[in-house]
């Protein structure tokens, strides 16, 4: 019986890992840049599909992770440069652009990839069955936890040890003034959006390996990532970490003890947080 709880906690952590990668990507775009990026779910899906094709062609999973992440970063770069940048600071058109983009991506995925659920094959060496203290658990899931910790650390460095985070926040407050202070805010915005895309792409490959990719899955993913940043607080890295840890456990235990209402359950912390602390656990007062 105890074994069961250990597995539940591990499942929760696995969920947290993927939620964090997703949520931190969205928190960059949504929370920091204030771009209501509704194509985050589509980015995830496209990244996953590209990774799938790479695995299919080469069998090289690390390469797939790289390609999935980088190509979405590139897509983010192009999208920001050619489209979002033109209506920057204008939240409604921005939103519409991201919606339109997600429609296009979803349809393109339908054309080029399967209409049914597919998963990325993780090679055996990355997914050994690991038994620790009598608990048998797939090695790939441990790997996911490690990857997400690495991502968290690098993000922390980028956001808090460089001027990037400050510059983006200042840019959201007053774009003109920040550029008059000698900061190339356009470039910074593009980089942050790229970073957000990179994370979505990585999440897609990770998620597509651990779960599956299926048509129409983008809205579910979008919803989940929104929940993460609502609970954690927009633009807060620590918030994304804590909220994905909480949500991961809720999802895991919810599925074990009240599966019928499991999806409903993840909205409860969200509702609580919004009622008591609308800016999220670690969000700034706005």
């Amino acid at each position, binding site marked *: 019986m105890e074994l069961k709880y250990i597995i539940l906690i591990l499942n929760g952590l696995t969920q947290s890992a993927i939620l964090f990668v997703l949520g931190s990507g969205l928190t960059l775009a949504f929370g920091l840049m204030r771009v209501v990026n509704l194509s985050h779910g589509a980015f995830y899906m496209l990244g996953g599909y590209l990774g799938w094709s790479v695995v299919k062609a080469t069998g090289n999973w690390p390469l797939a992770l790289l390609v999935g992440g980088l190509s979405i970063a590139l897509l983010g770069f192009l999208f920001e440069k050619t489209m979002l940048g033109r209506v920057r600071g204008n939240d409604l058109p921005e939103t519409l652009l991201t919606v339109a983009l997600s429609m296009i991506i979803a349809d393109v995925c339908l054309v080029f990839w399967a209409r049914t659920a597919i998963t990325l094959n993780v090679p055996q060496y990355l997914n050994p069955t690991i038994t620790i203290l009598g608990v048998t658990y797939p090695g790939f899931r441990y790997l996911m936890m490690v990857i997400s910790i690495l991502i968290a650390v690098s993000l922390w460095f980028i956001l808090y040890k460089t*001027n990037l985070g*400050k*510059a983006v*926040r*200042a840019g*959201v*407050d*007053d774009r*003109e*003034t*920040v*550029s*008059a*202070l*000698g*900061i*190339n*805010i356009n470039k910074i915005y593009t980089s942050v959006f790229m970073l957000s895309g990179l994370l979505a792409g990585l999440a897609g490959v990770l998620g597509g390996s651990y779960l599956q990719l299926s048509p129409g899955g983008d809205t579910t993913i979008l919803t989940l990532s929104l929940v993460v940043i609502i609970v954690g607080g927009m633009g807060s890295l620590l918030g994304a970490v804590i909220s994905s840890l909480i949500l991961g456990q809720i999802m895991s235990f919810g599925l074990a003890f009240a599966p019928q209402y499991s999806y409903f359950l993840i909205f409860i912390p969200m509702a609580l947080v919004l009622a008591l602390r609308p800016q999220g656990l670690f969000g*700034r007062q706005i």
Partner: protein
Amino acid sequence: MSESIRNHQASLEISDLQTYYGNSHILQGCSLKVGKECVAVLGRNGMGKTTLMRSIMGLIPPEGGSIRWQNIELSKKEPFEIAKLGIGYVPQGRRLFPSLSVDEHLSLTYRKTGQEGTWDPARVYALFPELANRRKISGTRLSGGEQQMLAIGRALVINPSIILLDEPSEGLSPIAVDLVIDTCRKLRKENISILLVEQNIHVAEALADHVYIMLSGKTVFDSEANKFLENLELREKYLGL
């Protein structure tokens, strides 16, 4: 900013500037020069002083005329490029960032140069001690006057060769105004040029070497500062005093 730019002959030259907001033609031929001196632009409300400053910074790109800074044409450049050429800007109305703390305002643009006498956050805090014990709070939580000080400090840590001040004394107590005047004098000693827009005539009097008068988007008059300010007739004519 590097020492090399500072040692260079600072000179800003604007001629026949034309600037529009949408369809309205705001600057209709505005010309002025700033050497190694303090130049004040005076005029009533709504005459286009701020528009001039913003045009120089590239925030509203002018559609005609030229702005030359150390023989570089600025009118087609992006604001951040202009700022990087050693032009500091204190915008009107402070325009601080609500999401940045006082400390972050100062560290955002500051780059360590390691040289003596450069402006760094510590020096700004020494200049405005009021800011020093407010480091962690959001810039917009400061009192009005403190915000103005921070806006000035924020431009100083760029270590510019010329600084554009748009009503720097607004909201400052008389004692703080004195402090700003002193600071500007110090800047002048460090050979930094100043382009000043002011409504507080005492400040202009204390600092300006040369004044320009703006009327409906045009520079209509200029002269040496003391000549203009001592001439009551001219003051009456252009400033309504």
